[in-house]
């Protein structure tokens, strides 16, 4: 058996800044994970459906538009509706510290703000993914 961690990296919402998402995608790849990169402007519904079809272990959400509260929470809500809350949801981007508790309450397991070393994110995924 050779299990691999499968990660969906998605950018919900309307901002077009995908540099951060690409950096994370690359870091996950270099850590031996399989990254399904979905591209820009995804709806929460698309992201969740993708994660289910791809049998993802992790969803990494990136948002720089300020709409993270609505979009990230909606992803978590849809996962619960589909009985898929075992998928680890993490988030990143320009997210004010004050917003983090609400996101965590909604089901985002961890929020990484700008400046986080990619190594820290990889280690978090490896330690928290449910296999």
């Amino acid at each position, binding site marked *: 058996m050779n299990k691999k961690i499968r990660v969906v990296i998605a950018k919900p919402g309307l901002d077009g800044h995908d540099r951060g998402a690409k950096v994370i995608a690359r870091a996950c790849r*270099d850590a031996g994970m399989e990254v399904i990169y*979905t591209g820009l402007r995804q709806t929460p519904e698309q992201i969740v459906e993708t994660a289910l079809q791809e049998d993802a272990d992790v969803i990494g959400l990136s948002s720089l538009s300020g709409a993270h509260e609505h979009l990230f929470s909606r992803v978590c809500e849809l996962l619960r509706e589909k009985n898929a809350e075992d998928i680890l949801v993490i988030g990143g981007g320009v997210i004010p510290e004050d917003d983090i508790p609400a996101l965590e309450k909604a089901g985002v397991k961890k929020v990484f703000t700008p400046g986080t070393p990619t190594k820290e994110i990889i280690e978090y995924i490896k330690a928290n993914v449910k296999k």
Partner: protein
Amino acid sequence: MVDIIESLKAGDKRAAARLITKAENNEKEAFEILKKLYDNTGNAYVIGITGPPGSGKSTLTDKLVKEIRKKYNKKVGIIAVDPTSPFTGGAILGDRIRMQDLSLDEGVFIRSMGTRGHLGGLSKATNYAVKVLDIIGMDYIFIETVGVGQSEVDIVKTADTTVLVMVPGLGDDIQAIKAGIMEIADIFAVNKADRGGTDRLVAEIEMMLDLNPENTPWKPPIVKTSAVSNKGVTELLDAIKTHKKFLKETDLLKTKRISNIETEILKIVKEELMSLITQKENHDKRKRLAVDVYHKKIDPFTAADCLIKIIKGG
């Protein structure tokens, strides 16, 4: 296991997604399930989309699938293969980017796969993923290979119809008569046909095809497409349908599938044998043989014979 089998029969996408993962991870349970459901396979028509990197395979697949959904309302599975890093084992699977609108279509299932060290344009488990999608009731299954060079021809042993996507400007006419990839196409799609050099490429392919023996029963058509602007897609789908009809009417579909199954069986045997040879118990023996070969006590051919004898004896 009974639950999974029932879910799959009912067309449950999540069960299918999990079964594909199990097959990818080489878990025994996956193969037990596939054994039990083997009767439910063979209904889907499998279309291979292959071609060099950046030739537009994903975009073309996206457009073909939309056409099928719109015109015929058939269910479609898509398996998109991208390369795995030989250094880290990781992969960026990015074919979905071109298929975003399809992700919410109830009648479509898309799965991305890394090659995981397998050469030939597909991953080892691609064949199993095809079976899983077949079992959950997909009418058509598209397999998009990794971007290929000249000799990744596994697709022809997996698909019923193989479409080779070419783009103008990649080389001179000698490329067209080389062996390998150019021989496997049932249909040529000359994509990005809005660019210069298209007519020359079409002429070169035609010339190559004219050199085929006269009694070849199927002459691959060449379809000009421009996937981004959705041009030539209807024509390409028509060509696929014509090829499908031809295979059915001539009974070649059966011949082809039997030949593909034979290849599949051989692959499974090969793998079993390899896993026997690479078993831990044989590790020391292998090492000793290698040392002996290094010191010229024996040659590598004799050493290989010794290993084969172990399996036969075992």
